[in-house]
């Protein structure tokens, strides 16, 4: 069984700055993989490279046998990768249903079937009752969830979630975690970036740690959180040495 997503020797350089260095990663079908790292580790950059928003300077990104590195974002999406944005990008003046339909139109040309698919996805995210509310009037929690719904409506094989928890109050996190679990149970592979560690540790089957643009650790949540190099990256060298 080969990996759904394969990153090989991926490098991203901005002028003189090497944001991602010789990065390798395999994501198997059906996994939930968390990508963590301190500020400036290159997580969002890596996401943007996979999703086609940044060009990579070296290496290859393969989805299910097809090269998607350096393809424009819309082609990456058509290949089966859907993403959310760290800073939500709602279609402000569209309703929730309409927003989801934009995603659904990718595989369903006529409005009736796009609507059907969109409603089905909204149902899975417990948002049907909001179908006719304008996206701009949603609360942030719901906007984040709408991002997921929109992406899901494109019927992706791989879902990239970029800090969907950020900005949620502590009480709102578990609800979204359940949603992500159920999406994964529905057969969608999930790769996510997250800062809220408690969330990462409960949901991820595997955690990949990025530090200074390089792979620092890769393992189960428990393994990773005990890894002295990870502790050092988060709290400072001396802390790890002293603790």
């Amino acid at each position, binding site marked *: 069984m080969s990996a759904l997503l394969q990153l090989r020797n991926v490098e991203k350089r901005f002028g003189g700055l090497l944001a991602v260095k010789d990065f390798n990663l395999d994501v198997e079908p059906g996994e939930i993989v968390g990508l963590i790292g301190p500020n400036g580790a290159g997580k969002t950059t890596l996401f943007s490279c996979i*999703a*086609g*928003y940044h060009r990579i300077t070296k290496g290859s990104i393969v989805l299910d046998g097809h090269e998607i590195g350096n393809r*424009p*974002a*819309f082609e990456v*999406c*058509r290949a089966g990768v*859907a*993403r959310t*944005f760290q800073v939500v*990008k*709602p*279609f*402000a*003046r*569209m309703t929730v249903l*309409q*927003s989801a*339909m*934009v*995603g659904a*139109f*990718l595989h369903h*040309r*006529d*409005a009736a079937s*796009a609507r059907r698919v969109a409603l089905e996805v909204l149902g899975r995210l417990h948002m049907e*009752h*909001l179908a*006719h*509310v*304008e996206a*701009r*009037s*949603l*609360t942030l929690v*719901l906007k984040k969830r709408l991002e997921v719904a*929109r*992406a899901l*409506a*494109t019927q992706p094989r791989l879902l990239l979630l970029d800090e969907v928890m950020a900005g949620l109050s502590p009480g709102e996190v578990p609800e979204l975690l359940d949603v992500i679990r159920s999406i994964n149970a529905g057969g969608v592979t999930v790769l996510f970036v997250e800062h809220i560690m408690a969330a990462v540790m409960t949901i991820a089957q595997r955690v990949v740690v990025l530090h200074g643009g390089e792979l620092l650790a890769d393992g189960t949540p428990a393994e990773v959180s005990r890894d002295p190099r990870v502790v050092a990256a988060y709290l400072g060298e001396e802390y790890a040495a002293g603790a």
Partner: protein
Amino acid sequence: MRAVKYLLLVLAIVAAAVGPLVTSNSFVRDLWVLVAMWGAVATAWNLIGGYAGGLSLGHAAFFGIGAYTSSLFYLDLHLSPWLGALAGGVVAMLSALVIGFITIRLRGPFFALATLAFAAILGIAATNLTALTHGAEGMTIPFAPGLGHAIFASKLDYYYVALALLLAYVALTWWISVSRFGYYLVAIRENEDAAQALGIDAVRVKLAATLLSAFMTALVGSFYAQYRLFFEPSIFATDISVQIALFAIIGGMGTVWGPLLGAAILVPVTGELQSWLGSSLPGIDAFVYGAILVLAILFVPNGFVSLLRPLFAAKHPPAATQQAAEAEAKT
């Protein structure tokens, strides 16, 4: 609710059909023609400006191309303006392809400036390519009524031609607004990055809308030529482009009926003003236009349609909306 909506629609169409018959006053009939005509152009502009979010200040270019192309074919090659209009539409699409490639990646004000410059270049060309366009002297089409010439003795006939165009455009806009293409345009307008992330090829979709809008605008330009039977290079002027955009903005951009509503309000108001005061106080009409524009953009940025919307709005439970409104009020 739905029934009321359709009833209103039927009433509006009937009113539009018989309205000009009520009067025989030529000035009033002219207003009806102008409302239909500018309503149609503004509806065409709305595809780019309202749905796709590209603030074109150069639609006079397509309007003028339509007028010049059909007139040149008619005068020099005796081609019926009905066909000439189609030719004008094709020429406008070709020019839209060129300007589209230049401007499609520009944002907001820069897109507006580039389209403005494009129309200005055409205006200069029309003034100076005298052999082709008769330069500043303008194009005069001899009055020779006949269906094949698309020249009519009665304003009523012109009115029904314009009304047909207008209804076709409004219907097309409605159809687009509920189809994939329309959803994609709005998605791109609202957030291009997010649209790309959902598999939308934004450049292609925007270009398609530009071509369609250019074609539609050019057809009305040909109509204008046959209606007025005279026009000059000033047809490319920025004022015309601004006016086109203005109708759509005042009425309500990105809505099916907004541009028509804008034209229906502004054309008679300024027409009347001009006829009352135009000779004693030239500029009063433009002054009112400008003042309405500034006030509307600051106080009714979503257009007059947004004021009517509560009358038609379906009743959805506004629970989430209310919450958000409160949050917004706080910020």
